[in-house]
């Protein structure tokens, strides 16, 4: 019973969004968005697509891929050391990331702005990619450490007896057995990049490196009262991830559960 009420709360805004995005600009202010559009039109979608939506999407995809690559490339060896190496330094490295979980991005955005400007990265995709990757690392390291810990010591022992190097153990044993944790990290990092708003807002300004979230934000001033076009842009922004959800719902939800939140 209660679930039906919540169903309505979820569905009504989504339905209104779809319906309004298919309504012509001329009828938008006279009708109620809850009524089905009388003469559905794709004009609003054309408006959005002709306003650089593809460019925003490809920028966001570049950021997401780069962030995932950086996060995996740095976090996997780190977690591997934290689990396998027994010295003071590895413990310290791990603690740094434990503390790092508590650093909110909002808190460092002012000094980061300064750093980005000093590095001559302001208003470039790198200005978004690097901090986004850094802030996705703590959770990623924790997830990977948790997964790598479950790899049995005996297996390492067996490989050591065969004279395997630490590199070989990482690539032939640890990584294949930690697939679950790695896919969690990929999903988490990609979502962070996909949904990130604060870093693009502060570190970029021109059209060139503009990403999707910021583009949506800019449509507010660009489209003004053209609310149907605005809603069409929201629908379009949701399509890629919605597709992933339809195709790989289990993997996506499993990955999110793996992060234990965020």
């Amino acid at each position: 019973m209660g679930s039906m009420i919540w169903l309505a709360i979820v569905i009504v805004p989504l339905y209104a969004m779809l319906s309004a995005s298919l309504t012509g600009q001329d009828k938008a202010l006279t009708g109620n968005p809850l009524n089905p559009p009388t003469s559905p039109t794709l004009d609003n979608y054309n408006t959005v697509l002709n306003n650089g939506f593809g460019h925003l999407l490809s920028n966001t995809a570049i950021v997401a891929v780069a962030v995932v690559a950086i996060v995996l490339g740095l976090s996997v060896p780190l977690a591997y050391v934290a689990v396998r190496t027994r010295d003071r330094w590895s413990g310290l490295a791990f603690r740094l990331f434990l503390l790092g979980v508590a650093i909110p991005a909002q808190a460092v955005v002012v000094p980061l702005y300064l750093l980005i400007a000093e590095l001559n990265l302001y208003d470039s995709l790198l200005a978004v990619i690097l901090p986004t990757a850094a802030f996705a690392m703590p959770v990623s390291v924790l997830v990977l450490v948790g997964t790598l810990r479950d790899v049995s010591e005996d297996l390492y022992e067996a490989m050591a007896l065969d004279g395997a190097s630490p590199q070989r153990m990482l690539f032939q044993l640890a990584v294949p057995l930690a697939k679950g944790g790695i896919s969690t990290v990929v999903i988490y990092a990609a979502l962070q990049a996909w949904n990130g708003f604060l870093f693009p807002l502060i570190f970029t300004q021109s059209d060139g490196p503009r990403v999707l979230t910021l583009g949506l934000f800019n449509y507010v001033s660009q489209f003004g009262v053209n609310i149907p076009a605005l809603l069409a842009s929201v629908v379009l922004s949701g399509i890629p991830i919605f597709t992933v959800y339809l195709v790989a719902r289990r993997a996506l939800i499993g990955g999110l559960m793996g992060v234990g939140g965020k």
Partner: protein
Amino acid sequence: MTAPTPTPTMTRATEPKATTPTPPTKPPKSSPKSSPKPSAVGRPHAAWALPGVLFFAFFAVVPMGLAFYLSFTSWDGLGDPRPVGLDNWQRLVNDDRMVQSLWLTVLLTAASWVFQTVIALLLGVWAAGRQRNRAVLSAIFFVPFLLSSTAIALLFYALLDPNFGIIRENILGSSNGAFLAIVFVGGWQFIPFHTLIYQGGARQIPDVLYQAAAIDGAGRSRQFFSITLPQLRHTVTTSTVLMVVGSLTYFETVLILTKGGPGTDTAILPYLMYEEGFKSYDFGYASAIASFLVLAATGLSLLLVRLTGFGGMRSTREGM
């Protein structure tokens, strides 16, 4: 959905296992080859961790220190920061907007917690059951979480537009309306996620308990309050910590929906900091607010974990 591979929670990793040798959990095999103690052969050098540590330090830890440093300076982004001692901090303590903003942030977090926890708990317990259509409805319930905060804020910005939207009243124009709108929009976005957490927790509760209660003649609501709720203690902790940390991310929602308005009535701390820094170019004062934010967030997280105990967080793992 089936549970994925065993997953860590933040605190499971706090056992400083990384530094102390882990005793083998299984008794050593009786084969002559395996040594009882883990060998030192084939362990990676700690330097492998260096690139990641340096990268993270440069973009997160160093800026953190810089933020504290800048909070003792006056700086408009041009030239060099000028040391001003405790000026910013004194201003912070005496700033009416700051007091209002702090109060507002606490209130928003509390209101969101009540709204999201009650609904997510009920939905999660429901979704863990065996009703018809459960899978389909669960899949639909999750959809809002797929949209970014920006997209969701825009969606409600449009739907709450008095000239266009569902409700032909200017909700965002009144202080209470704007506040409640932010609570609602945040809930709309994050309840799906917390529902998932509670669903996982509720699935772990042994059926035997309910069967025993049914034999004793306990009704459904009695079962909920005497079995389900106590069994979900740790799940509530996990979900709460995530909600509190997550409430800092309401920045997008506030920026798009209300711009902190009407007046400054929805200017939560992160938003106030953004305005001071990137609208007024008062980076010193913005840094003081940011530093305060970190101290408050860290203190709150520690307090929550202290109140509920690490053990609680750790055993939440089973609830995932």
